């Protein structure tokens, strides 16, 4: 087991290296000169040149990459081209709002997803199943920016119950985490349902049932516990996706998170911020994937890699 873990951890290094190269190449391939964007529309040529110099955008690309990579290894991601503040500060300020939003969205989405999924599986083929699945599927069928705007119109403007947006008290979390979690809840519900139905056909569950174990007990003890493994996988993956920050939800609810930072940075061609943020997402995503795999390997030694 330990060997497997070490092997997987070492395997991350080339992937991260590859990502750093891809990201670096990608941002520099995007058309648009950051010096011009930072200097503004009515800047003179010499202003632009001055900005370019002060931003460290001179020299061949490979040199710039080496510079970036070496500094990144020591934890220095440079200075934002747009605000001239350290990239670490820019990301740090927005990390927690995104993490908390993700956590809240995941909590409610997981609870509701599981409930609907189990209900649908148990009442398979009956109206509860259809109802539950239609509710779940509706969740992934809404354009989220439209839903967000409708929620604001209803709960903040017309009813005055909830703040329209921004990061602050628990009340600020309600609408954004609902909007963000809706898709996750739907995925969870469908996934739970299939996992559940599948497990219910396994021999040991049938045996338990045949032995006269009460139905409730069968569901909770045998089925749910085993169905949980794939469901956890899904939770992990979804969590990874959401941690990247949702551009749409963060924009609609004026959330000071990583998704909006990424969009802003892209439109300014703020290379250091884009690079650092994507590296962060990738590492986070890979680690979560790894955790899920390890969990799998624990649960089912057969799929453990040789």
């Amino acid at each position, binding site marked *: 087991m330990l060997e497997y873990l070490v092997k997987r951890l070492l395997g991350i290094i080339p992937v991260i290296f590859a990502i750093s190269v891809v990201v670096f190449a990608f941002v520099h391939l995007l058309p648009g000169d950051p010096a011009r964007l930072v200097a503004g529309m009515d*800047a*003179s040529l010499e202003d632009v040149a001055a900005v370019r110099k002060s931003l460290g955008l001179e020299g061949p690309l490979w040199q710039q990459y080496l510079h970036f990579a070496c500094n990144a290894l020591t934890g220095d991601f440079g200075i934002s081209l747009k*605000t001239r*503040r350290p990239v670490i500060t820019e990301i740090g300020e927005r990390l927690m709002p995104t993490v908390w939003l993700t956590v809240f969205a995941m909590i409610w989405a997981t609870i509701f997803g599981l409930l609907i999924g189990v209900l649908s599986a148990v009442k398979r083929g009956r109206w509860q199943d259809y109802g539950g699945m239609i509710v779940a599927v509706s969740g992934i069928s809404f354009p989220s920016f439209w839903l967000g705007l409708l929620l604001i119109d209803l709960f903040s403007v017309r009813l005055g119950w909830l703040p329209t*947006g921004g990061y602050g008290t628990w009340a600020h979390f309600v609408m954004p985490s609902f909007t963000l979690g809706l898709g996750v809840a739907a995925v969870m519900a469908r996934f739970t349902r299939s996992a559940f139905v599948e497990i219910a056909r396994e021999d040991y569950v049938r045996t338990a049932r045949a032995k006269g174990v009460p139905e409730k007990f069968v569901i909770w003890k045998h089925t749910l516990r085993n169905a949980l493994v794939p469901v956890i996988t899904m939770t992990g993956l979804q969590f990874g996706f959401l941690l990247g920050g949702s551009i749409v939800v963060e924009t609609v609810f004026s959330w000071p998170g990583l998704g909006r930072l990424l969009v802003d940075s892209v439109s300014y061609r703020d290379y250091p911020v884009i690079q650092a943020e994507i590296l962060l997402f990738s590492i986070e995503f890979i680690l979560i994937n790894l955790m899920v795999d390890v969990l799998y390997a624990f649960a089912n030694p057969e799929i453990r890699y040789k």
Partner: protein
Amino acid sequence: MRLKALLAAGALSALALAPGLAAAKTLVVGVPDNLTGLDPTNVNDTLSQTAMRTVYQGLFGFDQDMKIVPVLAESFEANDTATEFTIRLRKGVKFHDGTDFNANAVKISLERLANPDNKLSRRSLISMLDRVDVIDDSTVKIVLKTPFGALINTLAHPAIVIMSPAALEKYGKDIARNPVGTGAFKFKRWAADTFEVEKNEHYWKAGWPKVDGVTLRSVPENGSRFAMLQAGEVQYVTLFPPELVPVAEKLPNLLVVKRPSIVGWYAAMNTMKKPFTDPRVRQALNYAVDKAAYCKVVESGFCTPLQSPMPDLLGFFEPQKPYTFDVAKAKALLAEAGYPNGFETEIFALNNTNQIRAMQFLQQQLAQVGVKLTVTPLESGVAAQRIWGVQKPEDATVQMQLTGWSSSTGDADWGLRPLLWGKGFPPALFNVAYYKNDKVDADFEGALETADPAKRGAFYADAQKRIWEDAPWIFLGASQLLTAQSKNLSGVYMLPDRGFVLEGAEFK
């Protein structure tokens, strides 16, 4: 455990933020963008500059109607050749760090900006500065290398501010994170999407400011900004979407303020590319577009058609004979120029709702005279590349570009020269029409060599007339600036250049 603590903290702050308690003291403003920095001499967006006007002040400023008013200056005199300006300064003003505002502070601030070694992005505004002489503690003489008639206007530009020399010494480059000025508010915090300043107790205007502080919150979505205002979370909203005005006006506790602007909108035509090389074609397109309909459709009616290449609020504005909407005339002109069946061309602009709408409008209008317009909304970086990535005019891929321009100095020079000067082809300046008329160039240059308003006026009158006839642009409209605020707020207003003034904010 942490979760619980967070929830508890949340509940507490929810109480603290209950409307009525805190809202009466601190003004919260909803703005569409994030600030880009806290050093006005090194930022380029109006929002950052105008936000910093709460902390920093210049020698001169603009009043509501874009008229020059002295701020830290009291009066000035210029010599005949517009190379020397003597300025008397206000006495008894102190910086936030307690040091005195004086002639030396002016000298240090201006020379800092003009020094190329500092690589400040707004240097070009006063690159003609030779030196600042301290005459006495409250008098300076500004000496220029070349004549520059628009200097006082330039000094009113929000980028040219007077900073505390002690703070500059103390923070060095970090002044960009620790602003110290003479303004009505002291800098408190800038993080992610929130910028906060608090009352300057020792402000030189006795009795002001009337609010405890100002908070700017960046709220990119138009609908969300309006929702926040309705919910009372903000009391002032800038760049209010025109289509929402009818709704806002029905609400009893809100006030929509419409202000004229110096933001002129136009569609530049690349005069070096066929068929736009022929002035008749360019004039035809001007006749083909119904400017009144433009204002109605694109700006929901909050707009006035342009009457000259520059908006009427700028000094030296001269109205021209309008290109009245006339499809028949447009068709005749096109036929004369050899395009009886029109032609195909392309227009680009940024990918925001308003610009896309304006381009769609032009597409529909030009279709009536057989001109088939392809609309290309571009992401800002790509648009910038398309404009400035060009080294030689013949390489330009621009056919038409829709854009708006506001003269950040409030002067005719910066309202016309960057856009229409023969020496201003990209990447030097923003002459996307690649328009070059020697007489117009001579006007621009002549007007800068004198500080005499009569002479400058004559130059600009001639330039406007020639540009209007040459029609390098489809002249569209000057949009009105819309802001919305709670009815109990007074003393805030938007300037015609999209900056805003919050110093006089007061809650009733």
